């Protein structure tokens, strides 16, 4: 089990207070981003633990937008974890009471798994960029700020990444663009 986080040192009192307030307020965001990338709450909690420990060890300076900053950290760590997985973990679909029939739930799980496999095959920066847009719900402007890019470059990169992912998934499903099985 996890231990309580250690009190950090070598930071000003103000940095600590600001960081603790941000973590208290936005832990849910870290988890939901990591959970969407990884599809598994235990792995998402590992990522959240990792993010919090890292921040407490070295609090960042001059964070302008804590939610975007924490979401970016969460997506980065979650992508690393996703790419290291040898085998995709079963998502937590059995935990949901969403009214879906078993076959519908299986189909949803298959879709989520296919997307995650495709994301894992992207370069880490592209995978993070896609996750920030579609899992963390950051605006293009916010993504550009977090990844130190031009907003226009974010739009162009997302267009290219979507095509790569769609191609990968179609190959996984044995489909051509027209949807006809090969």
């Amino acid at each position, binding site marked *: 089990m996890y231990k309580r986080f250690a009190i950090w040192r070598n930071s000003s009192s103000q940095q600590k207070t600001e960081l603790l307030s941000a973590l208290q307020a936005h832990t849910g965001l870290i988890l939901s981003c990591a959970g969407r990338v990884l599809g598994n709450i235990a792995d998402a909690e590992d990522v*959240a*633990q990792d993010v919090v420990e890292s921040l407490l060890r070295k609090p960042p300076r001059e964070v302008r937008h*804590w939610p975007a900053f924490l979401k970016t950290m969460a997506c980065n760590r979650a992508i690393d974890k996703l790419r290291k997985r040898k085998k995709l973990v079963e*998502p937590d679909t059995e*935990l949901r009471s969403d009214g879906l029939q078993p076959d519908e739930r299986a189909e949803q799980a298959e879709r989520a798994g296919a997307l995650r496999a495709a994301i894992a095959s992207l370069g880490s920066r592209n995978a993070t960029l896609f996750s920030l847009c579609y899992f963390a719900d950051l605006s293009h402007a916010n993504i550009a700020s977090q990844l130190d890019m031009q907003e226009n470059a974010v739009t162009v990169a997302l267009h290219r990444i*979507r095509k790569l992912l769609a191609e990968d998934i179609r190959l996984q499903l044995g489909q051509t663009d027209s949807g006809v099985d090969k």
Partner: protein
Amino acid sequence: MSTNHQMHEMKDNSEEFLAPFIDAAREDVSADAYSDAADRVRSRLPEPETSTRQGKSVFRFGAAAAMLALVLLVGQTFMPGNGSTAFAAVQKWFRDFQNVHVTTTISAGDSVVVNVEVWALANGTVRIEQSGMVQILDGSAATFYMLLPGQKYFEQPLSAKPEQPQALDWFEDIREFQGEATLLQDSRLVSGINAQGYQLQTDDVDLTLWTDPVSHRPLLLEGALPGGLQMISTLDFDTDMQAKLFEIPQGYQLIEADQG
């Protein structure tokens, strides 16, 4: 190879194609699971610094004081825009009060981050309660007191310049700001009064001040703070305020400050 070529040439319908895959990935962990995990992570966060360095960090406990100052400075920093006459009357309440009681809640979504209650007199004497801690700033004696557990208290003269923490930069922004108060079209029920609202905006903080349209008395201040936090302050001007709120309770003993 021909498959790759077909892929390269295909029409970009990828966003539409990906939509159900993205939806599936977004929804396969339940909201309850996220909420439980967030509670577990939060429970492992360290407590803020406390007792052993209270003497040194006394002014770092200044968010509550800043909150009050923010409220009081609203009357001095915002220049009237549209509805100027009415807002000038609102500002007068901030300048000419006898006493004011402010209760502030800062929250993130449904989670309360901090609750602060402040009682202030026109002479600068202030009592602040936050998380069970009580601070009294005696304006006439220029002395700061902090009530501690075990019926003890700590005191410090206010001759030293208080530390200005970085997180209060937004407060400084407001103090320097020459903004505009915009009268809102819609009214809102506050404490049984059909209140009139003013929008006050800076780079970092958006404030909405709700006032009594007849007496122009400020009733409620709402703010969107940096970091996605929301602030709500209820304002109660010129109430029957007891003097003992600003006194050290009987039986409390003075302790020496830890200068370490």
